[in-house]
């Protein structure tokens, strides 16, 4: 009885190994099904998903205008104090004082890409960019000012 079981075991074992090896052989002859990405050699062809959360940016139009009103909703929404909105007062053509942003400081090194600031912004002034290669030699390079120099608020955004 022992010997029959032993032989059965050996045959079972050999069969299971053969089944596994068949799989290995299949991939050995079907290179097309291997999908390894050759990063960073494929940088030119690499396409990131539209919604990929790489960093927060503030889009400007061709007249160097943005949509940020300086309401600080993004600053309040951020869980780890990544955004600091510094406001100033602009004088409108009518001579009235109006709140506007001076600087929107963004600390990329603190950002967890949670998207909460983008969702919180009432005027869609900030969006997520698809960049993902953020490594730099000096940490201070990761602190960014999102509004461009001398930029203004877009017409009609309150």
């Amino acid at each position: 009885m022992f010997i029959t079981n032993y032989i059965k075991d050996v045959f079972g074992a050999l069969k299971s190994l053969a089944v596994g090896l068949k799989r290995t052989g299949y991939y050995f002859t079907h290179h097309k099904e291997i999908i390894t990405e050759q990063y960073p050699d494929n940088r030119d062809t690499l396409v990131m998903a539209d919604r990929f959360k790489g960093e927060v940016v503030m889009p400007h139009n061709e007249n160097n205008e943005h949509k940020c009103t300086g309401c600080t909703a993004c600053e309040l929404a951020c869980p780890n104090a990544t955004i600091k909105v510094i406001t100033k007062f602009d004088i409108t053509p009518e001579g009235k004082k109006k709140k506007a942003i001076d600087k929107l400081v963004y600390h990329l090194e603190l950002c967890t890409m949670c998207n909460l600031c983008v969702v919180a912004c009432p005027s869609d002034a900030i969006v997520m960019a698809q960049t993902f290669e953020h490594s730099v030699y000096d940490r201070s390079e990761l602190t960014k000012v999102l509004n461009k120099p001398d930029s203004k608020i877009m017409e009609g955004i309150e």
Partner: protein
Amino acid sequence: MVEEIGTTTEGDLIINVGPQHPATHGVLHLVITLNGETIKKIEPHLGYIHRSIEKMCESLTYRQFIYVTSRMDYLSAHINNHACALCVEKGMQIEVPARAEVIRVLMDELTRIASHELWWGAMAMDLGAFTPFFHAFREREAINEIMEETCGARLTMNYMVPGGVMQDLHPDFQRKVKEFIILFKRKIDEYDELVTGNIIFQNRMKGIGYISPEDAIAYGCSGPVLRGSGVSCDVRKIYPYGIYGQLNFEEVLETAGDSFARYMIRIREMKQSIRIIEQLIDNIPEGDFVAKTKAVLKLPKGEFYTRVETARGEFGVYIVSEGGTTPYRIKFRSPGFSNLSALDHMARGSKLGDLVAMMGTLDLVIPDIDR
């Protein structure tokens, strides 16, 4: 002379077993008392990853604290987020739109498959096979791409918000998931050919790390570890949340209680997840993806608890609210913690070489254990 298991006596060897699983990169270390090759006692040492997440949550608002939980069990990020969102919704009595409910379950089940895939690859690698690791990652990549398109991230999505989900599904979502289902059904048979039926794996897993149903309950195990001992404990079945109550799927149970049983649970569970996704993918209702909520959420005074079934077991969120915008106290009940506590019990009396298989089938994610 037979020495007593569980005590250290003179002449015993005490060794440190360090990083062994990809998810335990230096943060879990086991102090093992050995008599020859027999394990007498295991003491897990943790601490290098502690971030006091629960304390941190006390200073975050109800919208903000959810994203922290993706960083705990990072392989079940969606499901953890789901639990937190459910707890806030329970407190505020927010009605979640039907479309959001379906999206949530789809995401949960995709996450479960992705998590089990990674476990399967890592488990096989622990036992000495390298090929399955790559195969698992190949299929997981398809899920990651789907996630990336819709949620914008591959691991820490932060996609579920109180009242629904953050963004609507990507237009390609349905097509890609259907492609994935076809791909996955073909590949899961390959998994069986490569690993499940393999005599070496079977010999290294069968009868290893046995835990009886009574002991598993006593240690507070949940998920595949408890169900591997034949105890019915799937939260999706016994305390249905979201739309799980209306879905058609089986609670996977195995009775052997050993490493192979836990292995089989996860393999079979992936098939059930596919079954759930198949039921929903063609029936995503139109409508809002998030309910209208106030900009600042305030939970009424009281205590709220919700639980979900993550890939590793029961995950619970307990919020004590004083009525403010931030929780007064938060406690997470994470599955990995209790599952790891049973390791000592499972391993006593077995050989050191078998420890790797036991740990592999526990499917540990350390930030989930040491919050």
